């Protein structure tokens, strides 16, 4: 979405206003990791989208890695039952 002009939609739907887009993009920007809450408003929409794409990709990658590690850990802890039962009682 490199243009910020409102796009004409099919009949029956209202036009997307610039304000709505700006609002949503700023909301996205706040979710991105980085300088935290004080992200400047100077980054354009396309930059925010780019960072969003890369952030989603990195999150997917992290889920993959974490599930790898979790599967390894889960397979090795089944042998130690006393500790596992302690953990189970703690969690559940």
């Amino acid at each position, binding site marked *: 979405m490199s243009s910020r002009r409102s796009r004409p939609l099919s009949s029956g739907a209202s036009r997307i206003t610039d304000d709505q887009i700006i609002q*949503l993009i700023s909301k996205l920007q706040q979710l991105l990791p980085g300088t935290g809450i004080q992200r400047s408003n100077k980054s354009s929409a396309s930059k925010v989208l780019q960072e969003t794409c890369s952030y989603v990709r990195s999150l*997917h990658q992290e889920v993959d890695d974490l*599930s790898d590690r*979790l599967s390894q850990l889960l397979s090795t802890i089944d042998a130690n039952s006393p500790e596992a039962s302690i*953990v189970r009682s703690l969690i559940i």
Partner: protein
Amino acid sequence: MSPPQQPTSINPNSLKIQLAYRFLHNLNNLNTKRSNLDNTRIRRSHRVKLAAYASMAYVVGSRRAWSRAILWKIRNRAVLARFKRVDHKITTPLRHHHVHAGSVKRRTPSCSNPKREYSDPFGNSGQEVKLRKLVPGSSTMDALGLLDETADYIKCLATQVEVMKNLVDLYSII
């Protein structure tokens, strides 16, 4: 959302707690269902990944299009796998190691020229298309809804990653 620095007052309805419960429940089911059948490492990590996405989608329920899409994909895994096997015979596979029968999470193939601005026949710019590929269930949405869905998806995904990190930490100190 409960702030992470208050261990005494935990909001039981926070997204993180709900995700944690659901994920643990799914993991338990995983372990008890087919524990000795296919224990190869890749299959196991793939099942854990499926449990993670399933728990994420289940907690959010049908409120969001992405969760509906994930739930639909998981529930129809067997049917989709048959279609995918036919596809793989025809086209060359783009993904490297997620080609197993149960793999429904599509990964974006790494673009060979990421800098070039490309657009699909509807005139959408390249970034929007990339975002649509990443966020599940976003192909039938207009641009405004896509942004909204992305924000919600990122929030849930980040919380799920946090839950998994905590679990890994917990399990690794045993």
